[in-house]
């Protein structure tokens, strides 16, 4: 008995102390609070280093960009009243609006602009998304406190898009290691919200930034809850604990069927899924073979069954959400007979065992996939079956994600299955120009076509939108004919939103990464939107 009470004397105070420490926060009026889901915790809140969705969606409320995208992907003034180039498109003048401040009341200045740009081009800064956009930058100078001048060595049609750029406060970052600056977890906001609280691993609480130069947002607080598992996120969403979350096709159907307190929204993502063929290998060095491999896949059925209708066969590398998309270009049809003829034509003939070979070499290769996606595994199994019926052996090799991306980045694979997310800037050169091959570039399938190269180069300096549109159409036809990769699907994304949230708009960038995005949401009896 004495031993038992000794044990209790030890355990109970400890338990009580921890639980008591965890308790005690009094909630806000929940009507004015928007509860959002993060699928993972941000590593940091430094806009130059951000690479993942959880980081970007939080930063979208903390930081305005010099220029923002609106829901139609037009560039609109943000921190900058204007960003204008000289006639040669080499010098850009950035004019800030007067009266803009950081959350501590200090002004946003041209020095912040110059510092941020210099930090991006510093080779040691892992600004993965931004760096390539400023490859041609020569210098960034302060003209006056509200004006910066940025000079480039060559004109580029997508250069203005690069000014969709958040700023770092120079006074807190200059002279420090950008990657380990403590401010990466206590960012200084210049947007409609500021970070009030970050409970590691659990939540981030944003409150209105009283120093924000623009209209104040309707919501008083936005609470981002880190909920990695959909198995619990969805019940929480359904019972009102979360106001939004990404939905799978099955969950969308459930929301749509039940009606009531939630609704689903759908948008076309700036992305496509594909199977990359390593064009350097003899299996895939002939466009006829690659086209045949595409025509053996029943992409319509896959879109209907595995995506629940939230996908459509892709016709090339430009998704419908981009102005440069050529809707008149039909995707390659599902046509096994025509595919067989193309394979015969390319020299891959069926032997007595039903398998195809050319010059004594069997058509047998390995497709690598990153482990983890059930749908991708199912798609690949269907493809494997279709190829087997056509006399082609395809092994599937699931790989741990890190090992998979390392192999893909190096172009060290025979075939691989992936998705590519794109920027509003439709430049195809980073992925398709013959010079952009590994280890530096992202043309990991080693596509090489002089005509496509010439078109990409011409587009890079064509500032007339209509002329560029025609050139893009021609480029898409060239790539479509070459089919360096099998463009599988343009995918739509479904999002669930609570019915108490109003003024929710979608864009090809989703619900959050445009202006005003999530900053324009109102909840319950919240006031008018931004």
């Amino acid at each position, binding site marked *: 008995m004495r*031993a038992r009470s000794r044990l209790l004397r030890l355990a109970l105070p400890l*338990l009580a102390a921890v639980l008591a420490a965890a308790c005690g926060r009094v909630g806000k009026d929940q009507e004015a609070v928007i509860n959002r889901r993060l699928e993972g915790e941000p590593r940091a809140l430094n806009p130059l280093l951000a690479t993942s969705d959880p980081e970007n969606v939080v930063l979208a409320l903390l930081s305005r960009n010099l220029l923002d995208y609106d829901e139609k992907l037009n560039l609109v003034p943000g921190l900058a009243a204007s960003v204008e180039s000289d006639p040669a498109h080499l010098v850009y003048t950035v004019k800030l609006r007067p009266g803009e401040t950081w959350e501590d009341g200090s002004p946003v200045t041209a020095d912040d602009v110059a510092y941020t740009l210099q930090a991006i081009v510093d080779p040691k800064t892992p600004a993965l998304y931004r760096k390539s956009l400023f490859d041609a930058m020569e210098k960034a100078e302060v003209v006056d406190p509200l004006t910066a001048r940025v000079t480039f060595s060559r004109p580029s049609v997508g250069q203005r898009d690069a000014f969709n750029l958040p700023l770092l406060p120079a006074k807190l970052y200059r002279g420090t290691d950008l990657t380990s600056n403590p401010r990466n977890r206590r960012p200084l906001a210049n947007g409609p919200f500021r970070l009030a609280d970050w409970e590691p691993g659990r939540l981030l609480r944003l409150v209105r930034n009283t120093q924000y130069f623009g209209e104040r947002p309707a919501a008083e607080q936005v609470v981002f809850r880190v909920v990695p598992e959909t198995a619990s996120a969805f019940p929480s969403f359904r019972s009102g604990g979360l106001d939004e979350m990404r939905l799978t096709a099955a969950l969308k159907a459930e929301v749509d069927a039940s009606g009531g307190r939630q609704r689903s929204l759908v948008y076309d993502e700036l992305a496509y899924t594909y199977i990359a063929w390593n064009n350097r290998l003899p299996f895939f060095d002939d466009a006829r073979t690659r086209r045949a491999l595409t025509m053996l896949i029943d992409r319509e059925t896959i879109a209907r069954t595995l995506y629940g209708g939230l996908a459509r066969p892709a016709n090339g590398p430009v998704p419908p959400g981009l102005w440069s998309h050529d809707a008149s270009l039909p995707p390659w049809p599902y046509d096994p007979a025509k595919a067989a003829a193309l394979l015969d034509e390319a020299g891959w003939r069926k032997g007595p065992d039903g398998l195809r070979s050319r010059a004594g070499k069997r058509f047998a290769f390995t497709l690598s996939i*990153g482990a983890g996606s059930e749908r991708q595994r199912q798609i690949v199994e269907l493809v494997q079956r279709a190829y087997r019926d056509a006399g082609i052996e395809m092994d599937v090799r699931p790989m*741990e994600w*890190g090992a998979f991306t390392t192999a893909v980045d190096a172009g060290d694979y025979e075939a691989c299955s992936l998705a590519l997310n794109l920027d509003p800037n439709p430049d195809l050169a980073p992925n398709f120009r013959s010079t952009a091959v590994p280890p*530096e570039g992202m043309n990991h399938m080693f596509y090489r076509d002089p005509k496509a190269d010439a078109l990409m180069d011409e587009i890079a300096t064509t500032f007339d939108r209509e002329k560029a549109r025609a050139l893009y159409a021609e480029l898409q036809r060239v790539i479509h004919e070459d089919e360096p990769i099998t463009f599988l699907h343009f995918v739509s994304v479904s999002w669930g939103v609570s019915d108490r949230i109003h003024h929710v708009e979608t864009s090809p960038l989703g619900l959050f990464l445009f202006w005003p995005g999530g900053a324009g949401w109102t909840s319950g009896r919240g006031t008018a939107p931004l």
Partner: protein
Amino acid sequence: MLRALLRRALAALATLVGVLVVVFALLSAAPGDPAALALRDGARARPASPEAVAAFRAAYGLDRPAAVRLVSWVGRAARLDFGRSFRDGRPVAARIAETVPITLALNLAALLLALAAGVPLAAAAARRPGGAADRLSGLVADLFFSAPAFVTGTALLLVFGVRLGWTPVLAEPEEGLRGVALPIVTLGLAALAPVTRVVRACLLEALASPAALAAKARGEGEAAAVLRALRRSAVPLLALGASLVPQLVAGSVLVERLFAVPGTGQLLADSVFARDVPSVLGLTVVAGAAVVVASAVADGLSAVLDPRLAEGEREPGEAS
């Protein structure tokens, strides 16, 4: 006794170092450059520039040979400096310190719950071996033991969080015990089977002992006999408590992810997915130390409760 404790401590330390070496070797052997992977967080991200990767490698000492890194890491770990996380650059010790109290409280509460439910169940079962109570308690305990924590947790949250609305779906410590009931119950149910089965076995043995039979002959009542038997089972119960620590720690990973509890389990899962080597190693030390400390505490308390055990630890011929 002191020598025995010292021997146990050295053995535990050697085990811990062995586990660390294996974990470090596995992480080092995994394909892919950890620097490039750390900089490229998120499936959509592009590869980092060679200069950025080189800077990262230099900052985290990844440009040194693996053996040198391991020795250096163990040396610093001895001073509780586990290095900086590849993921967010923060000290690993600080990240772990934020999560340990949460996981500790969760597991302790689950263990208490398992004991509170398991002991009466076992007592009821032991009174009539093979009877209805015995069969039912065995069935219930085995059911929860065989169901993965993730499945039990999902079922609980659907019933109590969604259908009945008695608890929040995600863990909400602000709401007190109600807010953390589901993860505690999920973990507690997983520990219920071993508690019930071990206590039942101990009780049956104690009730069949000559002392118990003699007491019964003297007219001791059934309840008193069970209480006496429970007292005699204190030592194996403590050993059971220690043996449940690894199971609870492992179960915590799934339960914390499911209920969005920011404990060491969730941190471990995030760190493994992100190939955050310093964090994984630091958490390995903490989990290993938890097991070692739990079994040492159980040993110590057992020795206090039953001095014969301390005597038994003594070397032959050793002076008392």
